[in-house]
């Protein structure tokens, strides 16, 4: 089972817009919540209410600073979860067959009743997308909310991953990246979506959209004269009178 499928019928995945993400961590919380109550073992925590809490999360937001050669530095909030790679190294290293990639939609999953908790898959993933559950001793990872997206018991607008449904900035998009006409594929084409660590040759399905250059809005700035030349009339008199004091 840990042999990867040649191709998958669909490539379900996320497109994450680094231009729009405001780093609010709402998706982190939504993910933790959904995956604590649904698919597989609850996402465990160690010392949850103690002095040094630490737990398993499937989605985490890092923040980076980019300092260009010239001009101001920029902060980029950077959500990171499993990229459901086409050439997923985490799957092939698994000795038990617990890790697998689905032929029908390309989702990479862990069968928790087969996992021995050896941790090798987490070592094989370059992105840090897998974390061992501290309570259950099995490997946890993003399921792309496989228990939401096909769930007919949910209203249609909820049949997307919890992180996508929650994001208040609309920075996360979900769809089939194998279909060139899908919204996500169009978005990737329009914005030049990129792979993380392409040199690791994992062929990630998830794509990232880079921040738009910040200076573009200033192109017309020199043509905009200051309209407000200071108060006139009574207010102007008052202003001048006060200044003389």
């Amino acid at each position, binding site marked *: 089972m840990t042999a990867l499928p040649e191709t998958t019928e669909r490539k379900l995945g996320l497109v994450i817009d680094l231009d729009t993400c405001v780093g609010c961590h709402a998706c982190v919380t939504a993910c933790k919540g959904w995956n604590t109550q649904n698919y597989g073992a609850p996402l465990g925590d160690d010392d949850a209410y103690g002095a*040094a809490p630490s737990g398993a999360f499937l989605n985490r937001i*890092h923040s980076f600073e980019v300092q260009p050669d010239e001009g101001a530095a920029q902060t980029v909030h950077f959500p990171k979860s499993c990229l459901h790679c086409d050439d997923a190294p985490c799957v092939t*290293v698994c000795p038990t067959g617990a890790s697998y990639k689905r032929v029908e939609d390309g989702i990479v999953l862990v069968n928790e009743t087969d*996992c021995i908790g050896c941790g090798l898959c987490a070592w094989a993933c370059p992105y840090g997308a897998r974390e061992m559950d501290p309570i*259950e001793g099995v490997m946890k990872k993003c399921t792309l909310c496989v228990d939401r997206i096909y769930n007919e018991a949910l209203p249609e607008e909820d049949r997307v991953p919890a992180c996508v449904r929650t994001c208040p900035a609309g920075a996360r998009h979900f769809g089939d990246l194998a279909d060139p006409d899908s919204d996500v594929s169009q978005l990737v084409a329009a914005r030049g979506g990129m792979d993380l660590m392409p040199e690791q040759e994992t062929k990630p399905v998830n794509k990232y959209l880079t921040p738009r250059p910040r200076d573009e809005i200033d192109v017309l700035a020199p043509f905009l004269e200051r309209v407000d030349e200071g108060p006139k009339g009574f207010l102007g008199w008052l202003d001048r009178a006060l200044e003389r004091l």
Partner: protein
Amino acid sequence: MHPAPSLIFFSTLSGLGLGLLAFLGLGLAPTEGLTGLIFFALAFALTGAGLLSSTLHLGHPERALKAFTQWRTSWLSREAWVAVAALAVMGLYALLAMPGLRLAPLGWLGAVLCLGTVGSTAMIYAQLKTVPRWHQPTTPLLFLGYAITAGALLSGRVSWTVVLLIVMAALQMLAWRRGDAALAKSGTTIGTATGLGGRGRVRLFEPPHTGGNYLTREMVFRVGRKHRVTLRTLVLVLAFALPALLLLLPFSHWLAAVAVISHVVGMLAQRWLFFAEAEHVVGLYYGQSAA
């Protein structure tokens, strides 16, 4: 990585045991009678203790049998198969050889399987592109070399051991040199990790959380430069120089015993470094800079 004691003991002890078993299989160590029994017992005890300690770091050791299923793709699964085959073949060989019926071809097969086990263990690390320091041909060479050296040392092949110690010291230094440059050579940087490298210098501004997590505890571990130099010197002295020197003196069992102890302690230090120095590329997301 965080150098877990269970992994250090596993790889050291099983390396020693399997190396000695390979020598016994090739008929290069005494296999008959009481001496044979002592040698086989030592080799099986070391290997067994090593293999047992490797199951200690599993989250679900009771499901360990499932690890035999994925030998087509997984080195860990292959290791499980080859290890069991090596123990079975060598067990049969030992039972026959001790009373004096040494089946040479069975021993050869056993020796190949023993070294195959060591090689598979090494491949578990060497296959990981995510740890450039391990993703090198020197990794399997080192593991095999250490096992063969231990086999020669424990079976009392003095002149072989001295030659092997010298060769291994050179190989170890080469592995460190290549390893130190490996992350930079791999091309993976915080720039490619974030895809933002083309826009300027990227640094972690804020980690995802204030505490640690599984990844930072397991994989983002740093050995200080000073410690590194001390420990590497210790490995070269204890694992190679001192044993070689002691073996070159007129032979005595005491000196040989000290040579063995020194080599084993040096090997433990080497394995600690092997794990502790491994830089996983995920460290880049957590603000670890290239060394």
